[in-house]
């Protein structure tokens, strides 16, 4: 048992196929494989799969988590259409995604390109760029709130120093709260995606650059025609993760603005929490979750299709 490895069944079997002992071997290997998966799968099934599947049922009921659920049909979804909070949260989520996805993508790619060369202390800079990602989100929110303080914060002091008379109110202004959250989230996430891009960059064969140089391509043309196409699998993965992460943003918003001022940074996942956990309307809250699910699924499928077209 202890020496057995979880190699894919049968691939390395020395015995000819179809014998009795081979079949036993296959079965044993499969079981071992499953047993390695089991702890993770059990946790996933109990804590994630069951609630997720349950959401699909609960969304069509009215349920306070205590009494018997009452079947409502499509009432919850009808209510969504006229719910002002839902519309606001949906628009804010799209706003956040539209800001967070492209900016993080561009910044992390830029960082990766910058730190993918041989330069003194490159490891230090890579670590520094990754640092925000492993910092506690609460600390991040507190510090950025201080930086964004409208009257005494360094950000506005800098802007005033640069000659801007009326610097934005950031988290205390309904117009600027979302940009402030986006800036903070880009700063936090860039290091992680930079690491992914760095890994992608290392796999680009140097011969391609050499060949491009021989053909007289300048730096921009080399980036455009060699780096970007070679990075496509990485970019696709990063884009997917960023999309999913953006649509379900919760923690940063809750600790930084808690949806305020007013409802200017209220997002869908926060509304789900508020309706379900705080107000005990699990049916309605599940209906919003379903909408979020469909939204993320839809955007992911679009991206997946586009990626396949480009690869073909």
């Amino acid at each position, binding site marked *: 048992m202890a020496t057995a490895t979880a190699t894919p069944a049968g691939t390395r079997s020395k015995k000819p196929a179809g014998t009795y002992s081979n079949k036993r071997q296959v079965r044993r290997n499969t079981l071992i494989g499953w047993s390695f998966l089991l702890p993770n799968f059990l946790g996933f099934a109990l804590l994630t799969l069951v609630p997720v599947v349950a959401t699909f049922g609960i969304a069509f009921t009215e349920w306070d988590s*205590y009494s018997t659920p009452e079947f409502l049909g499509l009432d919850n979804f009808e209510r969504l259409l006229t719910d002002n909070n839902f519309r606001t949260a949906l628009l804010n989520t799209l706003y956040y995604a539209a800001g967070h996805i492209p900016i993080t993508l561009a910044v992390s790619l830029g960082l990766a390109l910058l730190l993918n060369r041989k330069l003194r202390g490159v490891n230090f800079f890579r670590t520094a760029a990754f640092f925000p990602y492993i910092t506690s989100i609460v600390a991040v929110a507190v510090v950025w709130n201080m930086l964004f303080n409208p009257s005494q914060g360094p950000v506005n002091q800098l802007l005033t120093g640069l000659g801007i008379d009326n610097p934005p109110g950031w988290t205390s202004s309904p117009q600027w709260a979302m940009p402030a959250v986006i800036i903070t989230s880009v700063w936090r996430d860039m290091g992680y995606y930079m690491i992914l891009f760095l890994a992608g960059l290392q796999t680009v064969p140097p011969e391609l650059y050499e060949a491009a140089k021989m053909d007289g391509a300048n730096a921009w043309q080399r980036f455009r025609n060699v780096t970007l196409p070679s990075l496509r699998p990485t970019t696709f993965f990063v884009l997917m993760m960023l999309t999913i992460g953006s649509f379900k943003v919760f923690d940063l918003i809750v600790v930084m603005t808690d949806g305020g001022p007013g409802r200017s940074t209220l997002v869908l996942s926060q509304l789900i929490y508020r309706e379900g956990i705080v107000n005990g309307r699990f049916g309605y809250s599940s209906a919003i979750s379903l909408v979020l699910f469909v939204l993320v699924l839809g955007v992911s499928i679009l991206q997946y299709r586009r990626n396949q077209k480009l690869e073909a």
Partner: protein
Amino acid sequence: MRRRTIKGLAVTATGALLIAGCSGGEGESATAADGRTALTVSVWNIEGTPEFNAEFDAYEEANPDIDIQPVDILADDYPEKVTAMLAGGDTTDVLTMKNVVDYARYASRGQLQDITELAESAPEGLEGLDAFDQDGKYFALPYRQDFWALYYNKGLFEELGLEVPAELTWEEYADLAKQITEEAAAAGITPAEGEKVYGTYHQIWRSLVHATAAAQTGGDQLSGEYEFFEPYYEWALDVQDAGATLDFATANSQQVTYRTMFTTEQAAMLPMGSWFIGALLQSKAAGESDVDWGIAKLPQASAGEDVTFGSPTAFAVNKNARSADAAADFVEWAAGPEGAKAVASVGATPALQSEEITEAFFALDGMPQDETSKAAFEPGEVALEMPVSEHTSDIDQILMEEHELIMTGSVPLEEGIAEMNRRVQDEVLSR
């Protein structure tokens, strides 16, 4: 082969579920290691809320066969955590009702035991009991009743040569706050922390404006018509615009606490709930602060009135309690004179009021002894902070959001109030 494995998995998973399910419900009342009956009580932030331990110690002394085991919960997450616990069939015996809105929710879901009998035999002078009336039935008894008053820093008043007024109108209060701010700056008084001495500090909670307005004008916070907030907003904004309090935006984004503002002497006045008395006594006893403080009645709309607001805190018995009888006995004890004495002994305001208890309260080490403070401790009328109905939490959310917009200056006052009216009527009342 594969199918069988999946079947095996399914069986294992079901088994795990069953085991998890079984470990949940045990009917027997628990016994502590030393043979005493264990009584579990849900509490928040037990270190910072000294009346819990005061009550538990006193009760255990009177009932040697009971061992109280507090279930400590983070104060900010308390309602959500208790909701989740109850939904999961938790068996904690006594549940502390932090606010009336959550109480109404638990009671209407049938998660609390009916203790109407205990309420009917409750002692005279138990304030705040009415808030727990659910169509003639009671599911909790208050042990504590807080109300809002005006705290002032006697030291700063003396330094500036000012008298502490026993009674103020909101207009006089606003003028006084501005006067203190100016004179403190002119006299060059600087606090230990922070940049300057403010005349007052307005905590960002909407209650400061909304609940005060409702209590003092008779307005209804669930009505969907909020014109009665207007004069109160005008006073609050006037103080803020004059720089006589830390502005809302800064206080909100920097998560400034009223406790810091007052104990580091950055604010000469502070409208706040009576729970702050206990915290002040505690921090003074621990040597963390040496503010010389007192309380006065909350400012009024016009002179001669005496109305403030507050909310009771109560104990209830869980429907799934393991030791239901002991739990009911504790709830009754806490609402009675012995419980009230324990609560008062740490500077918290008990729901049961009597001369004896007030005297014991002011005999505490560190309590101010002036007549103004003593008068403030017996408010004329205490209105409930927020009325209870099925709409309370939705309306609360809307009013909070619009309050934020008005106080940060994002929306002009009249527009903000119009928006409150419109949203509460469209999104809640007409639904």
